[in-house]
């Protein structure tokens, strides 16, 4: 009986264990936000991405796709122990614990020498997702004022007015406050997550040149966001137009495209082969 169970267990592969861990951790990390978005307005919530960007959902799907069939070796004792720890973290009622555990899992798989290239690629995408889910938000809790102030001063420079902290003097004499949701860093983290997901999907092993592309995508999103804020700083009618209900959908689309275009350029050789 014992022998049979051991051989049964050994038939489960490492990629299966880690794919299950990734799905369980991310699903539990986002559960509360998804339920809240769906219960408020199901159709609107679905169109808007259930509280998350479309880039997030695509990255999550690509992460799972990379993890599946990435390492066919039988799962060993350490894999089962890590799997059990992940399920335990996913079961806690605090979503942030799941995100933190996903970071731990991502780091473990990235630096574990026995991980296959594809499993490491999945781990890197998982890390990019957790930056968007947890670490970026944590950074914002501490430094949102400074980050918003940088955007405010950039916008003031573009429209030739002045800024104080996170407030920009608009061209019509009013003031515009830049808050967390409007900052470039908040928006750039979404594009960067998608960039990592797409590049790792087509080229699992990283190359040093990718950092340049990553920097270019970041700079592009910051420029795009500051151009949007500068339009808003012209007058109230422009503010209403750019900040209107359709704005989030449009911005979501543009950020998704920015990550997509940057990633496509980065892996163009792999795509053309």
């Amino acid at each position, binding site marked *: 009986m014992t022998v049979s169970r051991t051989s*049964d*267990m050994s*038939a*489960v*592969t490492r990629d*299966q*264990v880690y794919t*299950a861990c990734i*799905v*369980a951790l991310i*699903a*539990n990390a986002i*559960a*509360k936000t998804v*339920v809240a978005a769906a219960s408020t307005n199901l159709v609107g919530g679905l169109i808007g991405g259930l509280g998350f960007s479309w880039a997030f959902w695509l990255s999550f799907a690509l992460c799972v796709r990379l993890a599946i069939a990435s390492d066919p070796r039988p799962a060993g004792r350490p894999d089962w122990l890590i799997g059990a720890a992940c*399920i335990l973290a*996913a*079961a806690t*009622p*605090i979503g*942030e614990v799941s995100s933190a555990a996903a970071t731990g899992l991502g780091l473990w798989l990235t630096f574990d020498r026995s991980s296959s290239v594809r499993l490491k690629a999945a781990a890197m995408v998982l890390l990019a997702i957790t930056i968007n889910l947890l670490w970026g938000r*944590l950074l*914002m*809790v*501490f430094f*949102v*004022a400074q980050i*918003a102030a940088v955007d405010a001063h950039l916008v003031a420079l573009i429209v030739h007015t002045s800024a104080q*902290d*996170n*407030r920009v003097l608009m061209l019509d004499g009013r*003031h515009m*406050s*830049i*808050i*967390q*949701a409007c900052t470039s860093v908040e928006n750039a983290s979404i594009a960067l997550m998608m960039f990592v997901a797409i590049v790792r999907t087509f080229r699992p092993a990283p190359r040093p040149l990718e950092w340049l592309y990553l920097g270019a995508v970041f700079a592009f999103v910051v420029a795009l966001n500051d151009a949007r804020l500068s339009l808003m700083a012209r007058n109230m009618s422009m503010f209403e137009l750019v900040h209107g209900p359709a704005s989030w959908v449009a911005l979501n689309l543009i950020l998704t495209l920015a990550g997509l275009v940057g990633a496509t350029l980065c892996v163009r050789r792999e795509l053309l082969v």
Partner: protein
Amino acid sequence: MNSSSRFWLAAGAALLVSLASKVILGVLRDRLPEAPSANEKLREFLIASRVGPVAPVWATRPAPGIVGWRFGSGVCAGQAFPSDLPGNLDFQAQTHAPDRAHVSYVYRGLVERRPPKMRLAVDVITFRLFSEFTPTRAHEPSYVVVVYAASCSASPSLRWDRLRLN
């Protein structure tokens, strides 16, 4: 059924149980009594402080509602706003403060010239970690932004140490 299928079945069941428990916990928490909002506590404090008439400050963005309170009368009448989520950077107080107004921040009974960013950030993180286990639906820690006219030499003298927002 082979071991691989059994594994996926078990993993799927574990995922379902963990997600269902979160949904059920969420529904149960929604039935718990909600703690009074920071805005309501602030109004009660201002009334108890006998600072004169206390009137609501209304805003239309991001949603219509009361965002703070006007208190006192004359040139030294003040306004007090509970801070919103940390990411909103006192948006409402900034919007309603007159030009060159004096602004001070009250957190845990202390009046300061700068917002208590770091202490609040630590308190917010602690709150988020433990809020699921509290007997009421509490609100995130917040401070009060006090605004008063530039022509007044000092902030309205109130016993801010008696204000318990969180």
